[in-house]
């Protein structure tokens, strides 16, 4: 897409591991690698507890520092995130990379006005005075299509509707013109109609600002709506990634296939919804082999012994010893066309 071969990608994560300490350390992320180009939207897809949010939050090192051990490398906009000091980190957060949270009601401080919380971020990163920050915050509220932005500036979070709060959250996240936006299931807590509006708004702003987005979701429909590429995660690893259309039409990993066939799509009335048997593994006691092997109907002896590598093939990566063959009647070209 926009990532030309000459300029390096905006985000480059290499072999990232995240472990939460304690008596029984939890290996939440186990060797995740991906890149995001400038102006690209990467969907991070997976079920609860697969490490997608943990991966996302690692990009601004938001986990409690005392209990978290990071491994690998995170390079964003030429900066080594894991090597940053606390001071550098707080200047980087919100300015280069910012975040939109799942539940906007909880992500705003209830005792400050929404406007003040946006102005606060602007002042933190630009150093302009209070009245200029206020003007800018109102402009942003207006930009995310909040009616009567000047009045809404004075509103407290509990005085706004869910959709409006999420718009304000987006205004806050984009207030310092970041290059990368981390979106942690920003539409999950919203009504279906509001969901679409928020996704359209994000897409529009993303194009306008040339923004890169990493969008975490468990909802394939949402991922299709917003992403250029998706990475499917399972038990703290990316098991498959590639262009969204290809993944949807021709999943190569058995887990991706299971995930797709357990989702309701049009024209399915009367057919039984497939479910993936079993449950995800305990992240404190991961098996030595492929984490999905125990639930996989294609698993062989090799799957239990070692973790399969991601084999790169023209933008497609699959971490599987027995990847599914592409469907016979549908060519990759057709899938792209969708």
């Amino acid at each position, binding site marked *: 897409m926009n990532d030309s071969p000459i300029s390096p990608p905006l985000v480059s994560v290499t072999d990232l591991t995240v472990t939460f300490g304690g008596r029984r350390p939890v290996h939440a992320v186990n060797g995740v690698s991906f890149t995001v180009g400038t102006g690209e939207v990467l969907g991070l897809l997976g079920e609860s507890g697969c490490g997608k949010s943990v991966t996302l939050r690692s990009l601004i090192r938001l986990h409690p520092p005392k209990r978290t051990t990071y491994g690998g490398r995170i390079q964003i906009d030429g900066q080594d995130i894991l090597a940053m000091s606390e001071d550098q980190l707080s200047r980087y957060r*919100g300015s280069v990379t910012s975040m939109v949270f799942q539940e906007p009601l909880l992500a705003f*401080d209830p005792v400050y006005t929404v406007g003040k919380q946006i102005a606060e971020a602007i002042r*933190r990163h630009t150093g302009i005075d209070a009245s200029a920050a206020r003007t800018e915050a109102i402009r942003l509220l207006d930009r995310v299509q909040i009616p009567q932005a000047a009045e809404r500036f004075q509103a407290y979070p509990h005085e706004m509707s869910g959709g409006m709060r999420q718009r304000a959250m987006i205004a806050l996240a984009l207030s310092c013109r970041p290059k990368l936006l981390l979106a942690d299931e920003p539409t999950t807590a919203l009504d279906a109609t509001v969901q679409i509006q928020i996704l359209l708004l994000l897409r529009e702003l993303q194009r306008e600002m040339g923004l890169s987005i990493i969008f975490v979701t468990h909802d394939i429909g949402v991922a299709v709506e917003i992403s250029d590429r998706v990475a499917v995660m399972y038990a703290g690893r990316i098991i498959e990634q590639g262009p969204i259309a290809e993944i949807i039409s021709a999943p190569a990993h058995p887990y991706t296939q299971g995930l797709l066939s357990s989702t309701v799509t049009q024209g399915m009335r009367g057919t039984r919804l497939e479910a993936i048997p079993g449950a995800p593994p305990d992240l404190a006691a991961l098996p030595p082999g492929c984490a999905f092997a125990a639930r996989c109907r294609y698993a062989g002896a090799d799957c239990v012994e070692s973790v399969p590598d991601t084999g790169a093939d023209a933008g497609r990566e699959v971490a599987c010893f027995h990847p599914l063959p592409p469907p016979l009647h549908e060519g990759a070209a057709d899938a792209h066309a969708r």
Partner: protein
Amino acid sequence: MGFYVLRRVIYALPIALSVTVVCFLLVHIAPGDPLNAVAPADAPVEVINALKVAYGFDQPLPVQYFRWLGRALAGDLGTSVATGRPVLAEVMTAVVNTILLAVFAAVLGFSLGAVLGGMAGYRHKGIVDRIATALSVIGVSVPHYWLGMVLTIIFSSKLNWLPAMGAGPGGSKEWLWDAEHLRYLVLPVTTLAVIPLGIVTRTIRALVADILSKDFVQALRAKGMSDRAVFLHVVKNVAPTALAVMGLQLGYLLGGSILVETVFAWPGSGFLLNTAIFQRDLPLLQGTILILCMIFVLLNLLVDIIQPAIDPRMRRS
């Protein structure tokens, strides 16, 4: 906001009125004849009856109540049976002494409790947290009259550093702002501060730990706010509840601790109450309880008014 204040004040009125009823009834329901204090046990019946008429005890209770209420509203709480001085004057002297004690104890207990609780909340389950929790449990559970006695034994009897009793040299009841008088404050204030210290520490610790676990704290960090800026957000979130608890505690302190004031012979309202009870000084007892209750009602009203000024969520409900 003005409407809210007005509504709160109107709500406080029936409470204040019921307090007067309870105050009045309490004394009349309590066993024992109020005239025992004035008349000797072997006084002739005519004298007793004459006294009854003089004090108005021959009238039915409701009549007595309204007469008493009417006088009380006019600022006349009667005269002390024991000393013959106006009750209002007696109570006011005592209340001023108690306020002195309460304010010092509150400042000490609240500030120490806020610092300790805040630190414990920030270092949830750390070593500071454990120490603060242990201290607050001790503070809440140690009987403070016992603590007062122990402190007296150590610092007055053994070390002879501080006076054990009274509010000033030579048993004076009038307060003066000098070093000599301040020395008399140290032990009772320390003793009295222990309970609010414990409660405030515990409350603020729980509040801070709870706020820090909220999503918005993560969101603040995610937008690059410094630790100091996050701390200010935490303070503003903790303040409404912490203030309510402190207001309540200040109310208890202003009520005067009968036990602590008795241990230290501090001439405050608690001590006065104790004296009034033991001397069966009915007008004094009634007047003291009434004024203490009114202070409590007033303080709650004040907290009610201040709280929504800090917490916007309480403004429109």
